[in-house]
């Protein structure tokens, strides 16, 4: 985020991205004494580079030596001031829609400058499989995203890339789907590459985890296709990886989250949803895996399908016996078998993708992360049915997030947690549970809000709590910049910077005045050239 890092090429030359992270965090620490205003923090620090550069660089290098090769974020973060939360803003999901052009480029350019002046650290950019590799396998079109990366670099912001191997829907309407050639493969019902529910309904916004290692895509396995995609990304963006690209999120499933699309048949939003979702284990390949597992444990009948007595999408989970409190079949030996199998498949799928990502990006020093769902809606009953259908074997008696956290730790990845703007006790409790599991396994946590119309006060509280490293505010668009929202966002940014404001009292008055004059002319200059 700092101009002193990103904008000054000498200072950053040769530093790998992990160092950039360190570097920034150190500067973040130092800058406490320089900041004069909560709203144009980044800029003011940038202007100090002339004076502070030497000192900052040397300290950064020193830290880097101590911690070199440590790519796990929590360790890095431990050097930071506790109140420092890195803030990023998501770019529009449709920023690139047909591969080689940037949508609303002028708006994004203006927005980036505004964010920079506000003191935002970086932006998050979703990169869609269905956009880049739309036409045919191996035919990548990166130019639109490259242009965006260049815009972000020019604006002096960091860039966090999310690789989306899923489709995007807004209000039930598809905005971006999987690549056309993949969809064509899926049209053949017998290929069975999509998650499928009990009634046979397919979820077409991502591939079933059961085909990860089956050669269903023109003779290649999805894992190979994801691998090629990531390699192509890495070589195309080699000039950007490290700076401005400092982080990469790996898409892990529906909406990018490590989960089953258990809510695919639900009509309404989380707020007034009736049911807890359904198990998604009915595609041919999943059933085959289930069958094998059942035979292995000596109960072949258990492999014929998912629980027959689980409730449907629009039925309360207590309307049938699987999830019931007293003697529900989730507590039976069969229930335990099925739920272990179902959740293990998900963890193994996550492991495959994250180890792929860390093998490709690990040596380039960018932090790799993955998203985990917040399925809190039915935690008022013992079986926690919405977590179970999503693929987390987590009930009142069992913590299903331990294995997930272990898997992330093994791959040196951080966890992205959505729903930080939800003001709801059960959501908060579940967040706490997942965070605790991550802490235990020394896995860093990034936060995200679920909607730009969410509760910004809640986000404020979350950031103030200080137990997340970065916050991704979703997302830029008309509403984001609207008079109804933007002032509140400005105030929020101010509040996260607040604790450091007091420190600038140690600056001498005249020095500060001088600084701010430079600042003004500089910023005007920047506006004109940009």
């Amino acid at each position, binding site marked *: 985020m700092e101009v002193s890092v990103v904008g000054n090429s000498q200072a950053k030359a040769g530093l790998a991205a992990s160092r950039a992270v360190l570097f920034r965090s150190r500067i973040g620490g130092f800058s406490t004494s320089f900041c004069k205003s909560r709203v144009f923090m980044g*800029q003011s620090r940038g202007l100090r580079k002339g004076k502070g550069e030497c000192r900052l660089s040397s300290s950064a290098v020193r830290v880097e030596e101590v911690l070199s090769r440590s790519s796990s974020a929590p360790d890095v973060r431990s050097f930071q001031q506790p109140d420092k939360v890195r803030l990023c803003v998501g770019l529009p999901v449709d920023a690139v829609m047909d591969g080689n052009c940037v949508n609303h480029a002028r708006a994004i350019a203006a927005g980036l400058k505004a964010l920079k002046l506000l003191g935002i650290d970086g932006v998050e950019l979703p990169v869609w499989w269905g956009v880049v590799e739309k036409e045919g396998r191996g035919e990548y079109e990166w130019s639109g995203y490259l242009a965006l990366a260049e815009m972000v670099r020019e604006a002096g912001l960091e860039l966090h890339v999310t690789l989306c191997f899923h489709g995007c829907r807004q209000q039930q*309407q598809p905005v971006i789907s999987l690549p056309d050639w993949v969809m064509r493969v899926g049209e053949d019902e017998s290929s069975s590459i999509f998650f499928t529910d009990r009634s046979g309904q397919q979820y077409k916004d991502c591939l079933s985890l059961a085909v990860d290692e089956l050669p269903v895509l023109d003779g290649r396995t999805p894992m190979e296709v994801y691998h090629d995609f990531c390699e192509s990304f890495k070589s195309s963006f080699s000039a950007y990886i490290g700076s401005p690209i400092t982080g990469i999120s790996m898409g892990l499933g529906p909406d990018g989250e490590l989960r089953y699309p258990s809510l695919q048949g639900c009509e309404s939003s989380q707020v007034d949803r009736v049911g807890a979702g359904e198990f998604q284990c009915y595609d041919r390949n999943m059933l085959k895996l289930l069958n094998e597992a059942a035979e292995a444990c000596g109960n072949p009948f258990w492999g014929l399908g998912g629980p027959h007595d689980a409730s449907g999408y629009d039925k309360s989970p207590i309307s049938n016996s699987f999830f019931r*409190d007293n003697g529900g079949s989730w507590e039976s030996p069969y229930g335990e078998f099925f739920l272990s199998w179902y959740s293990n498949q998900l963890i193994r799928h996550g492991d495959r993708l994250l180890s792929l990502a860390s093998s490709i990006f690990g040596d380039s020093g960018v932090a790799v992360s993955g998203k985990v769902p917040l399925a809190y809606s039915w935690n008022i009953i013992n079986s926690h049915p919405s977590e179970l259908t999503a693929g987390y074997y987590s009930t009142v008696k069992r913590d299903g997030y331990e294995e997930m956290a272990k898997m992330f730790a093994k791959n040196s990845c951080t966890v992205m947690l959505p729903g930080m703007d939800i003001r709801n*006790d*059960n959501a908060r409790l579940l967040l706490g549970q997942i965070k605790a599991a991550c802490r235990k396994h020394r896995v860093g946590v990034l936060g995200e809000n679920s909607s730009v119309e969410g509760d910004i006060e809640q986000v404020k509280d979350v950031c103030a709590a200080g137990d997340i490293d970065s916050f991704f505010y979703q997302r830029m668009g008309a*509403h984001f910049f609207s*008079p109804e929202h933007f002032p509140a966002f*400005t105030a929020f940014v101010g509040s996260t910077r607040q604790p450091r404001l007091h420190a600038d009292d140690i600056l001498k008055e005249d020095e500060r005045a001088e600084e701010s004059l430079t*600042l003004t002319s500089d910023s005007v200059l920047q506006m004109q050239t940009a």
Partner: protein
Amino acid sequence: MPTLSTDPLPLPPTLRPSSASSSSALHSSLSFLLRRSSPWLSRRRCPAVACSAPRSVAPRASRGSSSSSVIVGDLEPAADPGVAFDKTFPIQHSAKVEGKIFVRFDQQNGENWVLTVGCTVPGTWILHWGVSYVDDVGSEWDQPPTEMRPPGSIPIKDYAIETPLEKPSTMMDGADCYEVNICVQSNSSIAAINFVLKDEETGAWYQHRGRDFKVPLVNCVPDDGNVVGANRGIGLWTGALGQLSNILLKTEATQEKPESSSCLSSESEEVRCIEGFYEEILLVKEVPIQNSVNVSVRNSPDDTKTLVSLETDLPGDVIVHWGVCRDDSKTWEIPSAPQPAETIAFKNKALRTLLQPKQQGNGASGLFTVDKEYAGFLFVLKLKGDSWLNCMGNDFYVPLPSSATDNQGEARSEGSQGHGMMEDHKEVSTTVYTDEIIKEIRNLASDISSEKSRNAKTKEAQESILQEIEKLAAEAYSIFRSAAPTFTDEAPAPEESIPSNISSGTGTGYEILCQGFNWESHKSGRWYMELEGRASELSALGFTIIWLPPPTDSVSPEGYMPRDLYNLNSRYGTVDQLKVLVKKFHEVNIKVLGDVVLNHRCAQYKNSNGVWNIFGGKLNWDDRAVVADDPHFQGRGNKSSGDNFHAAPNIDHSQDFVRKDIKEWLCWLRDEIGYDGWRLDFVRGFWGGYVKDYLDASEPYFAVGEYWDSLSYTYGEVDHNQDAHRQRIIDWINATNGTAGAFDVTTKGVLHAALERCEYWRLSDQKGKPPGVVGWWPSRAVTFIENHDTGSTQGHWRFPSGKEMQGYAYILTHPGTPAVFYDHIFSHYQSEISSLISLRNRNRIHCRSTVKIVKAERDVYAAIVDEKVAVKIGPGHFEPAVGHQRWSVAIEGNDYKVWQAS
């Protein structure tokens, strides 16, 4: 044979609805109440797509198109170096266009008849229609046979047709006219044609007195008061009386133009006796109008003053309400003299100047001279009839060049050149937007500066950066917004959110109601005084609203047969005692609801036929105030808009004078007695739209209506699914536009069945939500288990005996606004009720709280409310899940238990 007239009479001005003539009987078609109604009023029939018909965005006023002399566009800014500011603000406002809907029914030849529906107001009109067949039961529509459908008709589901109205060659009163013709065979089996008119531009539906228009083709069609052409000689009354009223109507209905002579056939015994008619119904539509105002600012020739000139193409007298300000805080001030001609001061805050009409063309202009010391010129425009125009919700603001803000001014114009590619209407909104952000961020900045620095230069620097941010954000906003959206940003807002404002439908959302009387309360003659002694106790129990008995002079001692509405001495006490009581409740912070009986009123005198239908007291109405469809009372008003209460004359709320009097009376009760709101008796009897009218006029703090009808039964057993029942209540609330809540009779009924039969599964509907009104529209549901009719000494529908506390455990922990009956408060249940109320208040449960049903089985029902309170009722076992929340038992009673999360 009648000839087809294409030149109907214009409506004489004396027949506008407001000019109620006192001597003549008002004809029904005169007072046809035509309302813009939301489609859900008759959602049964209206296609769902119309619910959110897009508000048509009228094209931006094309500059210079209306008159040649207006407006220098800001795409060519500052051609004249003296011009410091030049901008054209678009003005969107609306005007009322009056016109009419006409319905004509003519015989063409033999069995062929033509129904013509037309409209003289510009719009994209669609006739949404269907038919009823002779042997139809109920009021559902059917689709007409295909040969009846005019070209261009589109079927809507299986019950209606939509046919666009077209512009025929004829003109009507010199205005545009749209119409559609439907051919009918008089020998077909169609009993009636039903329709509503829809304006596709605004999405508004036009109905007839709150219902569909109905054109009967046979005389056995049930008349619900919405029949068009009702005076066609077919005996709605029988015998001499019927003929008499027909004659009356015929002679006095001057605007009526009977075109057909076929009414002769009505004398015959034939069932089918069709007759032509022609009727007109007044229609007022709001149409958007685009105008603009151009403001240019220049320096006076001697450079000592700033000249602001305003030009507008608004027609008629335009008054500029204006002032100046010294800084961006935009505090209005009055500038020093000289002021333009025709200027008056307004309350020392602003000036009002009448703009001078332009020499040629429409519009007006004015020139204002302002001292250099001011930073801005602020104004709003006022048109005649007290309509105000502003700049998208804000005052118009024109920055003035002055020595102090010169630089800023330059920065501004530089900025606007920067995005000159945008169309200028965006520019305007950008300015408004920027101003808002400036305000917002300025607060931030001033915080910082006052705390951290007194250095003026730093402050300036901050300001300039803030302005950069604002400008950039505004730019991004306008581009994002105008970009053809590949998807919309806004998620549909959930209807039920956190309660914020007080509204008459909900109060604060945290209300708990006490019914402060029972069927015997009148007996002592001093109820008001007795209740006064209990006010503090009721307040301490946690009640926020009390419902007092009907206060007026009444034929029956309980007050529900009101007579003289302005006489408030009743069996409950005198008017003075009532005032003292209300004052007492206000002292202990309890709001007071008056029980108002609006459906019916007892007459004091007989008419010439010996029928009691002449009223006394201050509101000395005659039989025109009585609905026409109750033969006992021989009313001369319109048909009732609801069900009839047969023991007293039902009031015809479609009469303007009746509504005016009722509104005055309600306002008088508010002012004179101090009532805060209303409990509305028997609202089934008249259209909810009238209730909205009354509530809008009397502005109650809280209002609740009694819409009580029977639940659905099959073979004598209460159905599990009571959706139809609660839908009727919801329809009524909808008709009041949500300004009133309604007693949740459905919930009471389902509780009866569940508790009596030990069938607690009934307490969850098919969707897992509460089965009553509270499951669908919780904020408007007033839940109760007993009242003076159902219980007390009447016992018309008594709650299962001994199980009252289960009922209260349910309603006092659930969303909705709970009401507790007086008899239960002062009984052995008091301590339990008190605990439940304090638990509700402690956990801030409100009318929109969320409820999640976690168990609904034979012998037990359990739910978790707001994730803070768990409740079970019924003998079966339930314990809330231990896990994230720790639950502790708060209240335990006979077959119920309540926990709260800790």
